[in-house]
């Protein structure tokens, strides 16, 4: 059967499953719409959280980021950063926010800091993080469709929007949770199956996590030693030791991603769906197990696929492949523009070296490592189709989670809690469906007309969440003394300095011409790059919030009681939370 036909069948089947689930899991109340009724089993929630969390970027781009752009060890910032945040969530945030037991993140901030202003500031932070994040997902959906199903980008995006629209508007969190579970199964199979084959082919060990530390088939050279040597010979840095900019920068980058992960509202609200406090703790553990299956496989995919590409181009030292005889997958991916070659020295052979003057593999997109993996390993067509369905599942599940965070902030925090407290539950449910519909259309619009900044946005979302939402939540739980004035000024200034540093480097709204203060030089703050700056913003937030709180009068007694009550799993909240 043709590859395209199989791909249509596999992707079509996965979509049919999502739609059946959507119809079966319609939401009948605001509680079901916002938190899936609060009765999700911790293992099920762990799986849904994993799908919610692992985006198009994790699935399609991360292995390439590690294996190509960050040349191996430097890419560890993503592996540690995007998993270590769950330890913070499990211990410092999720159990207490679950005990608080309401629907949204801004709602907690509004109650804890006894202020509508604090709630509205939190809504703004949430929308900034989530919108920048969702644009990346919409692009991912369009790109995955156009690459695998050979539709154009727009058709792909519209199809994706219709699917998300269907289950997110009908089912809210309830529909999203059950589809995310199905999507997790699809994406994890799609990621691990090719990795197992490749690991087995290269090292004889089918477990990629072990294969990465094994010797190559038919020799006693370790895979990583071989890769180190091949890279050094072609002028690259050693794979296992090449640091990203500096040790301090790697430290800051990892910290920013960890804190950012813990502060992303679409992840936090998943912990509102489990029945108990102890389920929230457990659920974070299961989520990390499900995430780790992909995240410990990714570095193996990165190293193995990089080695495969190097060896395809230069099978024996000094013997480069004839351009005429390059493999079919090479030609296939050249058509998509992800690979490009140029015979600069006219010898009819392909040289891939670090020196840009002599390098003839002029384009090697990060995404190629995952997307072309099955073809490089000569796997059957149904696995290629599965990778397509997996990439789409990763993008759809994350997009839906983000859209729910955005729409519930609008319908619940702005409409119900701030401007029209008198609306009935049925009206709020309709409003949340309306807000969801608008959010899907808005995200689709941004995906169709990606503003110039689409490329840099996902990294920005982490920086913003780290600098604004995370410190406010953590201080809200761990201190009874932090005041509304402290929290608001901390969030605003933390967000402000982070945006300032990023925009100063990359231009306001990522428009390159709008860069400012170029005289400061690149990465002028101790050599820290803009994507790694979120943890500095967080530190600024903490310092400002604590100092301002010290100067303003203590929070009212009922807030002190609220904080003490969320720290204890048993009992219902007695502190009045409305003001």
């Amino acid at each position: 059967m043709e590859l395209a036909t199989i791909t249509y069948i596999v992707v079509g089947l996965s979509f049919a499953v999502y739609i059946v689930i959507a119809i079966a899991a319609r939401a009948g109340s605001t509680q079901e719409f916002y938190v899936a009724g609060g009765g999700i089993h911790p293992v099920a929630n762990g799986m849904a959280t994993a799908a919610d969390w692992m985006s198009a970027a994790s699935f399609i781009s991360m292995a390439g980021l590690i294996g190509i752009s960050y040349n191996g060890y430097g890419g560890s910032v993503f592996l540690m950063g995007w998993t270590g945040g769950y330890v913070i969530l499990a211990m410092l945030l999720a159990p207490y926010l679950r005990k608080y037991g309401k629907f949204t993140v801004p709602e907690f901030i509004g109650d804890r800091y006894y202020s509508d202003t604090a709630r509205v500031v939190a809504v703004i932070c949430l929308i900034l993080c989530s919108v920048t994040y969702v644009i990346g997902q919409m692009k991912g959906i369009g790109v995955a469709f156009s690459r695998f199903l050979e539709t154009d980008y727009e058709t792909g995006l519209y199809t994706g929007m219709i699917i998300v629209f269907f289950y997110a508007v009908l089912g809210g969190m309830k529909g999203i949770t059950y589809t995310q579970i199905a999507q997790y199964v699809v994406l994890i199979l799609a990621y691990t199956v090719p990795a197992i084959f490749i690991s087995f082919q290269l090292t004889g060990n089918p477990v990629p996590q072990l294969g990465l530390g094994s010797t190559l088939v038919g020799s006693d050279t370790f895979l990583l030693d071989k890769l180190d040597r091949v890279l050094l010979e072609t002028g690259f840095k050693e794979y296992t030791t090449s640091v990203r900019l500096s040790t301090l920068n790697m430290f800051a980058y990892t910290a920013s991603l960890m804190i950012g992960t813990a502060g992303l509202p679409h992840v936090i609200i998943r912990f509102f769906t489990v029945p108990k406090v102890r389920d929230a703790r457990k659920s974070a553990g299961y989520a990390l197990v499900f995430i780790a299956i992909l995240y410990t496989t990714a570095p193996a995919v990165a190293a193995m696929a990089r080695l495969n590409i190097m060896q395809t181009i230069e099978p024996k030292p000094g013997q480069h492949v004839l351009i005429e005889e390059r493999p079919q997958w090479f030609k296939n991916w050249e058509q998509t523009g992800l690979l490009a070659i140029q015979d600069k020295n006219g010898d009819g052979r392909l040289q891939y070296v670090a020196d840009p003057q002599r390098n003839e593999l002029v384009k090697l997109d990060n995404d190629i490592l995952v997307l072309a993996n099955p073809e490089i390993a000569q796997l059957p067509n149904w696995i290629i189709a599965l990778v397509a369905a997996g990439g789409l599942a990763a993008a759809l599940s994350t997009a839906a989670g983000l859209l729910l965070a955005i729409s519930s902030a609008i319908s619940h925090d702005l409409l119900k809690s701030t401007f029209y407290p008198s609306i009935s539950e049925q009206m709020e449910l309709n409003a949340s469906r309306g807000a969801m519909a608008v959010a899907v259309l808005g995200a689709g619009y941004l995906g169709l007309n990606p503003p110039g900044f689409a490329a840099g946005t996902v990294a920005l979302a982490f920086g913003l969440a780290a600098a604004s939402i995370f410190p406010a939540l953590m201080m809200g739980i761990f201190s009874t003394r932090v005041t509304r004035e402290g929290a608001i000024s901390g969030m605003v200034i933390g967000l402000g300095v982070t945006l300032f540093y990023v925009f100063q480097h990359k231009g306001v709204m990522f428009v390159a011409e709008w860069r400012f203060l170029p005289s400061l030089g690149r990465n002028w703050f101790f050599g820290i790059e803009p994507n790694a700056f979120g943890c500095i913003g967080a530190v600024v937030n903490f310092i400002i919030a604590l100092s301002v709180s010290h100067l303003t009068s203590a929070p009212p007694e009922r807030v002190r009681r609220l904080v003490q009550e969320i720290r204890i799993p048993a009992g219902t909240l007695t502190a009045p939370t409305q003001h």
Partner: protein
Amino acid sequence: MSQLSEAQAKQYWKRNRSLMIRLMLIWFVVSFGCGILWVDTLNLIQIGGYKLGFWFAQQGSIFVFIGLIFYYVVAMARLDREFGVEED
């Protein structure tokens, strides 16, 4: 607030916090420590094909993270029982 007196509630929170601090210390050591700050030294040790520092950065720290969360789950369940604050 459940049946806990103010003093008991304080004690419960103190025990929870000291557990958190100990576990977060390990969290810091395996990632920022072994994976970043001391990576060069640890890389002198080789386990199979892995340099040890590289292994912590790309595999080991993640496995430890999982262990930490489940340890916290179990230890907190014990603490909740001890103070009689487990939910139903």
